[in-house]
């Protein structure tokens, strides 16, 4: 997936001279996870900028550049560091168009990895999409495959709105087929990653793979899960989710964020805006991280993050009738 993101940046920077990238260790080093590798040589230091360790300033820098017609892509080395840039992203980039009465747009991309499940502990392992889904003015993307990551990053760079992309670090090395021909994945369109008739599992990012793993295992017992990957968390493709839930009558949402006020809760609530309780065959179930900081030790981190067993248990629960 890292290579796919790199290709997206290279293609968009080639096509549009207003695209620039800035972040910590992204130029000479090519990014801690190689997403920006080779860009410095190809596009030069004016458009590929190694920044000081200043997450707030580089995010504000991106927003300011966007105001006068650049398309900056800001890399947060670890997505948790977005808390340092929160004011610039939420209070500035997200609001500037609205507050100006539509005079300006802010074509900014902020992207970075979610580094959980590898022992990086509480300040490098958070899944924070709920904070940003809650912020009017932002687009939030969480890709699960190399194909989606490349196509969505290209769409994000071309979009005239501020976009946050949360990339699971463990997926950077995961391979999937990416066409050689030019393509984009549109923002706001979910992808049914697996069709099934018994229960709908909505899951984005690495949770998609957990859902698919559960689906493969349960298929052996004759239970068919439908796995809907929203890909974009805001705007959410609620139609695809609702169509699936109407078909299966059962909804499970898997999400690695903390449970309270989380994205899983949002998906359940949004679905119930459209689907009557009487249309459901079971109460919707959320499979989420526990409401704790992410601990370091492997046994503890496994306990906190959603697991395959948690998904299987959720399926048993909704299939109980």
């Amino acid at each position, binding site marked *: 997936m890292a290579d796919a993101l790199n290709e997206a940046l290279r293609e968009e920077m080639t096509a549009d001279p207003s695209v620039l990238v800035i972040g910590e260790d992204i130029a000479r080093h090519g990014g801690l996870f190689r997403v920006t590798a080779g860009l410095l040589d190809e596009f030069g230091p004016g458009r590929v900028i190694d920044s000081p360790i200043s997450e707030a300033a580089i995010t504000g*820098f991106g*927003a300011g550049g966007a105001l006068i017609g650049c398309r*900056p892509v800001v890399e947060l080395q670890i997505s948790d560091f977005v808390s340092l840039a929160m004011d610039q992203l939420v209070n500035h980039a997200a609001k500037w168009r609205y507050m100006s009465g539509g005079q300006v747009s802010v074509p900014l991309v902020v992207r970075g990895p979610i580094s959980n499940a590898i022992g990086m502990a509480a300040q490098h392992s958070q899944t924070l999409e709920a904070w940003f889904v809650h912020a009017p003015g932002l687009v939030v993307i969480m890709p699960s495959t190399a194909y989606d990551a490349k196509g969505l990053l290209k769409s994000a760079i071309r979009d005239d709105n501020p976009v946050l992309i949360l990339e699971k670090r463990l997926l950077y090395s995961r391979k999937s087929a990416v066409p050689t021909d030019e393509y984009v994945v549109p923002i706001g369109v979910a992808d049914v990653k697996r069709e099934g008739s018994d229960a709908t599992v909505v899951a984005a990012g690495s949770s998609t793979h957990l859902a698919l793993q559960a689906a493969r295992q349960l298929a052996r017992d004759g239970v068919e899960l439908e796995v809907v990957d929203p890909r974009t968390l805001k*705007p959410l493709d609620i139609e695809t989710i609702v169509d699936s839930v109407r078909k299966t009558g059962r909804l499970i949402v898997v999400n690695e964020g903390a449970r309270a006020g989380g994205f899983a809760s949002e998906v359940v609530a949004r679905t119930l805006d459209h689907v009557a309780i009487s249309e459901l065959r079971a109460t919707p179930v959320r499979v989420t991280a526990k409401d704790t900081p992410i601990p370091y030790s492997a046994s503890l981190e496994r306990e906190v993050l959603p697991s395959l067993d948690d998904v299987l248990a959720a399926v048993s629960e909704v299939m109980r009738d």
Partner: protein
Amino acid sequence: MTAVETPTLAALEQSYLTMQRIRAFEAKAMELFAEKYIRGSVHPYTGQEAIAVGVCEALRAGDYITSTHRGHGHCIAKGLELRPMMAEITGRATGYCKGRGGSMHITAMRHGMLGADAIVAGSLAMAVGAAYGLRLQGRDGVVVAFFGDGAAQQGIFHEAANLASVLSAPVVFVCENNQWAISTPISCAIKIENIAERAPGYGFPGEVVDGNDVLAVREVAQRAVDRARAGEGPTLIEAKTYRITPHSAATPMDNRDPEELAHWRERDPIGRLARRLVEEGSVTDARLEELALQAHAEVEDAAAWALDSPYPDASDAIEDVYAPAEWLTPGRLS
């Protein structure tokens, strides 16, 4: 470094007129607040007019500014029109931001006003990004970021100053040191004499200037703007001044020493320019009075026009959250 020209008499009269416009605008804004035409608050720029006017006179078309909650003066000095400004702060559809921004958030892209920011140092990094972007696009524009002494104590000041320096961004940081952060004196906020002393720590020049002397401000600003335009990087200007009104219309209490206030009233930037024009130039008191009346009339016209303007249609509240996009279809967002 280019030499700074001595302004012509016409230019000095223009400075005087602009300062009077700002003074009259703020007086009218306070009046409209008291009469409940303005919601929220107003943070008057009264007493600080020489800074916005002196700095903006050093700019040209294609240059940009960012501003703060105390931003009306910067807008007027940058050439924004009084009618849509007054309409904005009275919440009308004809305001620069269609009534969405209000007093603290006037943006006017066609005048090079990137936006006023109610997070006191919030716009500094955006100013750096805009300045860098201008250079990347091959434009020779400069961005001026106005902010106060209080803002210099927020973390983003440090990050933005340092980033501007390492990127040699064509930006000028203008710190208006009015010596009070609401009720907290500057002596409680910093342990150095001048905020400008920090600039060498970032690798660029810092200059202290009498912020109540429009000619001195203009001269320092011109040097900094020329330097930025020449690709030599940022400058931090600290303009010492004083706000002679309370912090805001909504918080009229004022714990400052009346003697201190009286001292600064004597150094009022408009009075100082007036004395200079009369003593050194050929300007008569009558001419100055005429200019003050002109400013007053323009402000009255703007207020009447604003109050005669419609409020935004309620349905407009949900517009412009996002820029047009293919995915932006009804019902998509909630």
